[in-house]
């Protein structure tokens, strides 16, 4: 079954989406969209390193993402620059370093477009294995730290005061994000990984009453976007990553439509709270 490249892409993409959905909810709740962007830009540096050292791409990308995440945490503790400035610095430095080192390696020809936007032709059985092992690991750990991570998201002070050690939960969460970005690089591309994290979660928001519901719905929405996106990529010969993101965007817009009135009411509620 996995001999067909398209089936491989489907299986891989759905696996990635199932993990990205719940994790993406936390990205949205914690306002860390730019953090996801930073890690995915840094993925390009990981690709360059993997070519240079001739190691597995996913492993190299994961390692670079983890290093960037840890650097971010320690830079933020030193309280020199604001969080978003640090992110911008790391993000673009890593991206530029990656591109420069790729250019130096004249002996390798890299499909830059594939790296940036995903390439379903490139998905191997090994990739699928890594996605399901890595993704299963991420989901298991996420389930394990769910309560403390969620408490730390609602209020870090409250979580710390009641002994839930929010810094540790935050570090674990960042590492999980790094793993997800590493395993989604091939299917969706470095530039658009954050979209697979954020858009399905955003589409799930309006339809959910509890955080757990939102996480599950985000996983389903992500998987649906992958299926729809990959089929259109096959039919219209469009790059796979952008097609998946467009499908997710359509889902998000659909999630807005029936709740149009609801949205307006929520807005006034928020304004009412703040006044």
């Amino acid at each position: 079954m996995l001999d067909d490249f398209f089936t491989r892409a489907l299986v891989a993409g759905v696996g990635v989406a199932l993990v990205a959905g719940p994790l993406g909810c936390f990205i949205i709740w914690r306002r860390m969209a730019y953090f996801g962007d930073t890690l995915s830009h840094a993925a390009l540096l990981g690709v360059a390193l993997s070519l240079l050292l001739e190691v597995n791409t996913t492993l190299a990308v994961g390692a670079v993402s983890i290093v960037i995440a840890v650097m971010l945490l320690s830079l933020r503790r030193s309280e020199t620059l604001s969080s978003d400035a640090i992110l911008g610095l790391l993000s673009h430095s890593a991206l530029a370093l990656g591109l420069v080192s790729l250019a130096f390696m004249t002996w390798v020809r890299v499909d830059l477009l594939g790296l940036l936007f995903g390439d379903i032709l490139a998905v191997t059985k090994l990739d699928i294995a890594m996605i399901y092992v890595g993704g299963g690991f991420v989901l298991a750990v996420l389930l394990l730290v769910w309560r403390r991570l969620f408490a730390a998201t609602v209020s870090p002070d409250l979580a710390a005061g009641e002994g839930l050690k929010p810094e540790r939960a935050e570090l674990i969460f960042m590492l999980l994000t790094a793993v997800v970005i590493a395993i989604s690089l091939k299917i969706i591309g470095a530039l658009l990984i954050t979209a697979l994290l954020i858009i399905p979660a955003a589409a799930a928001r309006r339809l959910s009453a509890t955080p757990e519901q939102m996480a599950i719905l985000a996983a389903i929405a992500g998987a649906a976007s992958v299926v729809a996106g990959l089929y259109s990529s096959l039919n219209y010969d469009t790059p796979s990553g952008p097609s998946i993101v467009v499908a997710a965007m359509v889902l998000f817009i659909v999630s807005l439509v029936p709740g149009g009135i609801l949205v307006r009411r929520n807005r006034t509620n928020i304004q009412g709270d703040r006044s």
Partner: protein
Amino acid sequence: MTASKMQLVQLDRAGIRKGGNWLVRGVDLSVSEREIVTLIGPNGSGKSTTAKMALGILKPSEGSAFRGKGLKVGYVPQKLTIDWTLPLSVGRFMRLTNPLSDADCRQALEQTGAGHLLNAEMRTLSGGEMQRVMLARAIARSPDLLVLDEPVQGVDYAGEIAIYDLISEIRNTMGCGILMISHDLHVVMAAADQVICLNGHVCCRGTPSDVSKSDQYHALFGARAGAGLAVYQHHHDHVHLPDGQVRHADGTICSDCPGEHHEHAHEDQQANTGMTDAR
């Protein structure tokens, strides 16, 4: 637990420095079982910072903080904002840091007068409702130590008295220690075993009766015990004067307290001058 009083949390000459400034320093504080300790003081006097040191959220830059092993804390932070992106009902919020049965959840909410809010969205709560829900959540954990950072802010006056009564009732029934922060001097006093007045350092401390020896305090406690209207009258004053008024009340206590206060006499004078200017 033993019959003798067990120390739950203790600060020893503890202080926090941030960006070269001392937010608060030299704080000695301890809370035992069945004890209510109240921190009072003007804005920016280090009340919340002190509570956070006691909780272990902040690590003291000098001195030390001790917490009993396996201490179960219920914490009501000063402020909690729930982002729109978070679908969070009151019922789910009650289970934020620990699992909880439906019955316990409902009972805790009813104790704080928030039973009807069980299925409400956290975002839609008013300030007073939020306080009641946060207090209910902290109680429902059946903690050894309750830390309440201005638990009645935004609560209407009748509710405020009810919540203070509830807090002392909780102490009696659950036997937990309570560390409470308040800017409302008059109501807090009655239930507290110890009152610590902060203004960047410990200004004065003592039992409510020690602290309330001043005529002004005596009047306040009389009002607390008396008819609702008299209490309300005072509360009205507090609300409508600039917060310098609260500081002034502190200043008065301080001038009646010998010992610790004199070490910092000049600083207090400075602070007092500042307050006069503000008014």
